[in-house]
């Protein structure tokens, strides 16, 4: 990794180049095993599956760790997203986890103490939608430094585009609505970013907040014009479905009426997970290439950025456009997933929720958005379980009398604690833990 002038003989002993097969093998195993586990849902005990899962995880992590290029890296190897052994291990484990998760959640396992198993699948899907939106929000607010409160406005824009393209024009065609929303989001986002050319910090926040209310007006007008007060129904006849010419694909068994409708948590997971993962990877790639570096430069010092040849105005608008495009797409997904959107679906509280997500997750870290949304959705579930089942807590009437207020209070309290003791949020905490595991593994290893 470092440029050392070793004699060639010594260099060979530290340089290690695994073959392509070896580099990809752990990921291939991680990708295949969940489907084998999933295909044997009925006849293998849950605990056996858990055991196999843990063993595979350990093996995959170890293989990815060992088969990582070492020594003096070429520039291409140095550019890789997963560069170090620890990065590659975690990437393989994450791949495996993402693929095995739906099979675990779909099993009829009942955890001890009535831990809410069934609701967790819905929570995971919401985490995926929120992670995508929060990552885009973080790209704009944290990474590009453009404070914006217009986030929910773009979720609403996603619903509008979903309503026009996905419901009114094509009757439940979410696949067309997604790119349409991305396009609309990019254009409207660039327009909403125009105040950023003149304003900064708090003033920009207020200007974008104004945009939020304008969008709410548009949303209400649109709703009343075409749908009345009932709101848009994205369910039932408007549910997204897989076109019949794609039914030959493995894993797609049409229902009795000859259609494959995306409904139920398991099917939704396979729609949401790839879209979220791909859009987050897209943003990660943007951040590590030319335009993404320019975003950070503009955030840190716009004068020196402009003297490097960066068109600051263009860079800011580009950040707004990219972020809004992804948020609008997550708006479409949320609309179709939740199934209906009415007058009161979008409010200021949601902007604050996203702010909590990125602050807790870790400011200006895309990974943090994922941690933040997991935190945001799992915590209330866990509190709810604790209120109902945990042996001392369930006897405190006060907690079950004001459940949502107490959830909010605890969230607020945790935000303060995180801001005080861990300003880089859960992503920073994760980095510490990862470093610690990596060090203790390296100490034991050869």
């Amino acid at each position, binding site marked *: 990794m*470092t*440029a050392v002038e070793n004699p060639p003989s010594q260099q060979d002993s530290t340089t290690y180049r695994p073959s392509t097969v070896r580099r990809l093998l752990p990921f291939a195993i991680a990708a295949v095993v969940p489907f084998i586990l999933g295909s044997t849902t009925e006849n293998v005990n849950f605990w056996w599956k858990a055991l196999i899962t843990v063993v595979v995880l350990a093996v995959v992590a170890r293989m990815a760790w060992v088969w990582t290029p070492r020594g003096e890296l070429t*520039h*291409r190897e*140095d*550019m890789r997203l997963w560069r170090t052994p620890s990065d590659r291990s975690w990437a393989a484990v994450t791949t495996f986890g993402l693929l095995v998760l739906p099979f675990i959640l779909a099993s009829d396992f009942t955890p001890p103490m009535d831990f809410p198993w069934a609701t967790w699948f819905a929570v995971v899907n919401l985490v995926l939608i929120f992670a995508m939106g929060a990552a885009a929000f973080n790209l704009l607010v944290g990474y590009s430094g453009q404070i914006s409160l217009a986030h929910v406005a773009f979720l609403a824009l996603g619903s509008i585009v979903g309503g026009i393209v996905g419901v009114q024009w094509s009757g439940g065609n979410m696949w067309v609505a997604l790119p349409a929303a991305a396009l609309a989001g990019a254009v409207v986002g660039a327009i909403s970013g125009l105040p950023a050319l003149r304003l900064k910090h708090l003033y920009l926040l207020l200007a974008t907040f104004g945009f939020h209310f304008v969008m709410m007006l548009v949303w209400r007008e649109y709703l009343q014009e075409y749908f009345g007060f009932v709101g848009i129904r994205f369910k039932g006849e408007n549910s997204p479905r897989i076109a019949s010419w794609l039914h030959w694909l493995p894993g797609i068994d049409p229902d009795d009426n000859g259609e494959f409708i995306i409904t139920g948590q398991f099917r939704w997971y396979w729609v949401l997970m790839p879209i979220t993962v791909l859009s987050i990877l*897209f*943003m990660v*790639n*943007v951040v*590590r*290439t*030319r*335009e*993404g*570096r*320019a975003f*950070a*430069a503009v955030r*840190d*010092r716009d*004068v*020196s*950025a*402009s*003297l*490097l*040849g*960066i*068109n*600051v105005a263009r860079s800011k608008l*580009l950040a707004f456009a*990219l972020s809004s495009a992804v948020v609008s797409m997550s708006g479409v997904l949320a609309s179709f997933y939740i199934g209906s959107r009415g007058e009161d679906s979008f409010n200021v509280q949601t902007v604050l929720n996203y702010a909590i997500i990125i602050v807790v997750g870790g400011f200006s870290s895309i990974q943090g958005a994922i941690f933040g949304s997991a935190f945001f959705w799992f915590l209330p579930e866990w509190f709810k379980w604790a209120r109902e089942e945990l042996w001392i807590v369930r006897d405190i009437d006060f907690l079950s009398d004001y459940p949502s207020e107490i959830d909010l209070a605890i969230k607020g309290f945790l935000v303060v604690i995180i801001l005080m003791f861990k300003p880089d949020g859960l992503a920073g905490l994760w980095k510490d833990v990862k470093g610690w595991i990596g060090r203790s593994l390296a100490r034991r290893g050869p």
Partner: protein
Amino acid sequence: MSDDILSFENLTVQFGGVRACDAIDGHVKRGSLFALIGPNGAGKTTLVNAISGVYKPLPGAQVQFHPAGKPTEDLLSYRPFQIARLGVARTFQNLGLFMGENVLTNLLLGRYIHEHTRLIEGGLFTRRAVKRELAARQAIERVVDLLDLGTFKREPVGDLPYGVQKRVEFGRVLAMEPELLMLDEPMAGMSVDEKQDMIRYIYAAQDELDMTVFLIEHDMGVVMSIADHVMVLDFGQKIAEGTPAEMQQDERVIAAYLGTEMAEN
């Protein structure tokens, strides 16, 4: 005139009632090392800011840039980022680095004007984007080798010692491969050894990379030993111009630097 790379005439910058630069004329010869000196508050940085487009001079000023083999450009009609793209790069007296980013990122930002990866290409990480990123990487690796920054590549710039930060910033403008390199006190606050290293780097930029250097410097010793041509400012006025040897003899320069009474003795 034809061998000038930069010429400015009647350049006046005014802040409120203060004339930070007052009707300054000057010519920088291609391939030379032009030094701008003067006491604190003489208007040296203001002059560089006016040339690089950060400040707008008063009407009547002329700043012309003559890139090799291309038509002359009137810099006053461009915005700072366009001036940078024409081939005029500069450093800052108090560092214009992005402190949270690592050395590689800072240096790669210097390649922004050369490798044009578009946002969508970058996001999809297409073959072309990878090729361009690699080209940028190879270009900055040369700078890393030249400036001995190899050991700091992945360190956040904010964590590095001041002398190294100065080197990183110098490396960033080198990565831009400008025709005219404007250095605003690149040696301020450095030890003697670090200064000597920096002089070596500046020579390398001038000789190996064919850049014209426009240098602001306080250290008279350094200026006298390396500059081809010296311009002296005091209170926004140009008080003298010529070769370093001439400047050492010039009474107004001695007066400006040492005070009038001492000059009389």
